[in-house]
């Protein structure tokens, strides 16, 4: 494999990994607060159509990212209101949110499918990325650098900041957090909103980073991969970074192997497609074996907060 090809593969892997990384980081924060939002796919689609429409109408990519985040927050607030204020079941509400986002985005996008837009260009001047080696470092759009910064930011927030400590406390033991005087519901609302914003931006990656168009259901299940990824990473930001790139690599290597031949091309397509999910289950098992009885999952994950009045 020539160095040029390796670099080309890296560039493609970065593209494939970025949206799932961003969406999964958002979901990681949500789950750390003790909430399971399975509506990631729906929020991503809402973000994708918003980003597409804004670029189509204004040509401003950064405004598109911003409004996609806002749209993701808006969608996540439906989930937040139902599950947090009305303590509806999180699993069912998340599924309903995905149905909603799929339908709403398709409705908003009707008539826009034959309209091309432009990708968000590289962040750094082209001179920096002339040589292939430099391209690996400086050749990407702002969304990619944002995803890396986000890994650090989420790690720092959860590990080092006071707010992050409160968030984790809420996720591990909501009743104690409540009795100390923290607003469990308030913290969870904030987490859900953050998750919505990140899912919106992850959705924006589709028309802005990967394929400059709108197509119904264009996220094609990446939201579910993001949910798997959070588990795969056992709720840790740096493992999530590694996991996102591993998933991206698996998804990309299949295509490179098939297009270029070689031993990997003999693996059936179905096995390639199943690999991220099998790997997630295996990782779950490994974590559990290593840590005996308890794994890393936030203790209150998916359970409603019901303080006795």
């Amino acid at each position: 494999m020539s160095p040029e090809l390796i670099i080309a593969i890296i560039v493609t892997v970065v593209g494939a990994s970025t949206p799932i990384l961003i969406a999964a980081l958002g979901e990681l924060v949500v789950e750390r607060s003790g909430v399971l939002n399975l509506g990631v796919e729906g929020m991503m689609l809402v973000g994708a159509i918003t980003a597409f429409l804004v670029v189509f109408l204004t040509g401003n990519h950064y405004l598109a990212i911003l409004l996609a985040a806002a749209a993701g927050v808006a969608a996540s607030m439906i989930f937040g209101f139902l599950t947090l204020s009305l303590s509806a079941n999180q699993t069912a509400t998340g599924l309903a949110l995905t149905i909603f986002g799929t339908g709403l985005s398709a409705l908003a996008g009707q008539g826009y499918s034959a309209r091309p837009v432009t990708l968000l260009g590289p962040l750094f001047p082209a001179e920096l990325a002339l040589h292939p080696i430099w391209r690996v470092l400086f050749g990407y759009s702002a969304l990619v650098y944002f995803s890396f910064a986000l890994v650090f930011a989420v790690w720092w927030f959860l590990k080092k900041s006071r707010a992050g400590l409160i968030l984790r406390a809420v996720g591990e033991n909501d009743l104690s957090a409540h009795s100390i005087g923290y607003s469990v519901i308030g913290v969870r609302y904030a987490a859900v909103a953050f998750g919505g914003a990140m899912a919106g931006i992850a959705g924006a990656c589709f028309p802005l980073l990967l394929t400059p168009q709108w197509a119904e259901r264009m996220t094609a299940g990446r939201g579910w991969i993001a949910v798997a990824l959070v588990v795969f990473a056992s709720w840790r930001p740096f493992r999530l970074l590694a996991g996102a790139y591993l998933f991206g690599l698996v998804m990309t290597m299949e295509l490179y192997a098939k297009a270029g031949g070689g031993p990997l091309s003999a693996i059936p397509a179905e096995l390639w497609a199943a690999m991220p999910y099998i790997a997630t289950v295996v990782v779950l098992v490994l974590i559990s074996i290593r840590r005996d009885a308890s794994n890393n999952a936030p203790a209150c994950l998916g359970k409603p907060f019901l303080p006795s009045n």
Partner: protein
Amino acid sequence: MQFRLEKRREPSKAMLYATPVVAVLLTMVVGAIIFSLIGFDGIGAVREIFFTPLTNAYKWQDLGVKAAPLIIIGVGLSIAYRANVWNIGAEGQYVMGGLAATWIALLTYGMSGWWILPLMVVAGIAGGALYASIPALLRTRLNVNEILTSLMLTYVSVQLIYYLVRAPWKDPMGMGFPQTRRFSADALLPNIFPGTIVHAGVPIAIVVALVAWFVMSRSVFGYQMKVVGAAPHAARYGGFSENKTIWLALLVSGALAGLAGALEVSGPFQRMVPGFPTNYGFTAIIVAFLGRLNPLGVIFGGIVIAITFVGGEVAQTSIGLSNAATGVFQAMMLFFLLAGDILVRYRIRRVVPQTAEARS
């Protein structure tokens, strides 16, 4: 004037039955208004989605056929969820049930005998239960969250269908298309009323729900499920094993999903195709909640969801409402239904500000 929520001592029976009805009504009103505002025929949409499916005998058959797998899977899930076991991989268990039944149908291809269909059903039940035993094993042995494992396994099962119908099980006479042979006559689920499309799966669904209702409300098993779900610590003192409950919950919900898969593949599908996973397993989660995790309620939930599916297509054919719009309608109804949950457990009290201050 202020409102506050006050927890009821007992879940309100009246609200339990009233909220789903109110939610459906609200969806109609709000849906009609919103869709009219954005330039659709809102009233027509409501009429076509919610009422037309109820207007003739053919549509009743459609509703039954569509609701049957949702009810069978939903009943299993409602039992598991009562026990606080969150199997959300019913779609995968449904798929494995369908594949197990297909396997029998292909092994017995060309043979005849009354035993073929029952064997397929048994295989389907076993297939679903076996697939659900993976999350059960991981949960009880290693304390791995079953929400996540059951979800992941669903995606694996779908790829397994793709592989099987593309390579080893491909119909030799199928012009190269990825699907199995059409099953022989004795591997097909019969229609119970000649001249209709109502297959044996429809009465089976009702029977499953009734039996489950009886077991859950009258037997020790049902009591164990509910106690472990509601108060695991108390249950331990009472001598109920939590692990045993988890196993039972996953095996029962997996077996019923597998049963639905076997009935679907031998009934409506009549062969295995890549389009076999039709989200019944995920939709049944919603059905279980619409039914308030009560097997009889699940019948209601299954029918309501079936109405919106059938009605959505009616709206497409009659007033040209797009598929996207019906998706939004469905989601809206779910949101209202889920929101209504709170009224079952809480009452809204109007409080005078002074009292509120005094209380806090």
